[in-house]
């Protein structure tokens, strides 16, 4: 089975791209990876349509873990997941984790063939509870 995919969503395209670079350095091409950042006009923010496309680019039958920065990125990612076709919806989760550290940890876990649930738990261990 393919490795879990990782999607990075930030208000800032620079942060999303930079975090994705760090993930690539850690895990190479062993996990499907996509990033998106910025609102539909290119300013700071997030874009539901672009998040749906990123999930598509990072798609894996093992599932996709989404790492987000601030509130709007989370709300928009959940909205994007809601708008996926029903067969995919249950295979995408938003991790409650810091975006950079969470993405690197999640990808490292995913590169070893872990399940979506394990990938999410590893990322979320970083969150203060």
């Amino acid at each position, binding site marked *: 089975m393919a490795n879990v995919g990782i999607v990075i969503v930030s208000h800032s395209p620079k942060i999303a791209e930079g975090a994705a670079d760090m993930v690539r350095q850690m895990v190479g091409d062993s996990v499907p990876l996509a990033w998106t950042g910025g*609102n*539909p*006009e290119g300013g700071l923010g997030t874009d*539901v349509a672009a998040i749906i496309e990123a999930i598509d680019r990072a798609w894996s039958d093992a599932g996709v873990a989404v790492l987000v920065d601030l509130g*709007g990125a989370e709300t928009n990612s959940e909205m994007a997941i809601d708008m996926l076709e029903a067969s995919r919806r249950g295979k995408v989760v938003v991790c409650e984790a810091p975006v950079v550290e969470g993405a690197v940890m999640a990808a490292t876990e995913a590169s070893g063939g872990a399940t979506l649930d394990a990938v999410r738990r590893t990322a979320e261990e970083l969150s203060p509870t």
Partner: protein
Amino acid sequence: MMDQTVQRRLIEAVANAVVNHADELTTLDQAIGDGDHGLNMKRGALVILERVDELGAQPLPAALKAAGQMLVMKVGGASGPLYGTLLMTLGKELPAAPDRDDLVRALGAAVAAVKKIGRSDVGQKTMLDVLGPVYEELTLGGPAPFDRIRQRGAAAADATIPMKAIKGRASFLGERSIGHMDPGARSASLMIAAACTVMEE
């Protein structure tokens, strides 16, 4: 069917209320948020105004769903999915020619959907602090409902000033969020007031 002229005027009034107050919403959001609420909401409102011919001609439920989707896809901040969910749920729950009971039931469902997607509730200094009281006022019935709803919405937005933010970007400020009106509460009260004014005529 809802009168198409009324429906079109409702859409225009609500969208224009956002456009005309975009600077004020941005100023409020600069005080306790990331300063993009006015711009984000204006972007969504302008998309809706561009397509007002099409939205005005559709049956009410379809128009609400379409407008909600435009907000989800175009706003770019958390307010897009939140207001988008509000409109899409209203579209799903309302019949083409709603009476007051339909509106009570649909708004109740829509407010619940916003709470769910925002993982928030009344009392956390958000748009829900206007939507909740407005829903309550609607359930009361009685004469001159639109005037009362408009006043209740405005008072509820004012009542967010002394509140401490628990949800959203303003919550990062903790105590410092006290003393500022919540921008989402303000935008909700503006749109509700605009809708009430059209319905009164």
